[in-house]
């Protein structure tokens, strides 16, 4: 699977993550889903957990973003968050709390010299399961 992201959407996502330091930042990405996905709109959300090791979007922002995605006939194509001190790879918590099949989980690591963004699908037999298998997604920023 591939996720194409316009440069300006990508830049906004990275900036939001950097501005959220030292805590994790998060948000949603709308676009066209189904097979290879194309991002078109970003929703920068507040991390209600205000934590360097956990994220949970604030309810009002999350609901408004989901409503906007529906209103504009978009699909939710990605959920992003930052890792402030670890690699851009799903943590056990990320896997356990992933409940959006087919939606790319974008992780932006800020632990290195520069931001490192990677995408994953977290495939589960049942979306409510704790356990899942991680599948890498190709990101194309242009």
């Amino acid at each position, binding site marked *: 699977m591939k996720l194409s992201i316009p440069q300006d959407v990508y830049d906004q996502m990275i900036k939001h993550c950097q501005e959220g330091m030292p805590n994790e930042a998060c948000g949603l990405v709308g676009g066209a889903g189904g097979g290879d996905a194309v991002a078109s709109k970003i929703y920068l959300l507040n991390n209600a957990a205000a934590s360097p090791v956990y*994220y949970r979007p604030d309810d009002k922002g999350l609901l408004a973003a*989901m409503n906007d995605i529906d209103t504009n006939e978009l699909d*939710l194509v990605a*959920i992003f968050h930052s890792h402030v001190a670890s690699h851009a790879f799903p943590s056990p918590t990320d896997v356990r709390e992933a*409940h959006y099949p087919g939606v790319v989980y974008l992780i932006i690591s800020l632990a290195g010299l520069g931001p490192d963004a990677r995408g994953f699908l977290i495939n589960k037999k049942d*979306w409510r399961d704790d356990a899942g298998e991680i599948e890498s997604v190709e990101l194309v920023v242009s």
Partner: protein
Amino acid sequence: MTLVSVELKIPALLRSHVGGVKQLEVPEGSLRELLEAVAAEHPAFGTQIFEEEGALHRFVNVYVNDEDARYLDGLETQVVDGDVVAILPAVAGG
């Protein structure tokens, strides 16, 4: 005269279980009554959101007018005409 009822927003993940619609108009009552009525009509929807004991699945969040029902009266929260109820799978991680 405008007919007003409770608007129930269905997340993309569950739309296939309710005929593909984004939202349903449902009568007022408790959240439990409202969701069980939808589940009676669409059994697969019910098995997705409820545990066997009748509680909401822990990864299913329900909001009434943007407030998490867990911080209201849970499934006993009363919703009235004009209210908006939204179901969302949890978004979180670490």
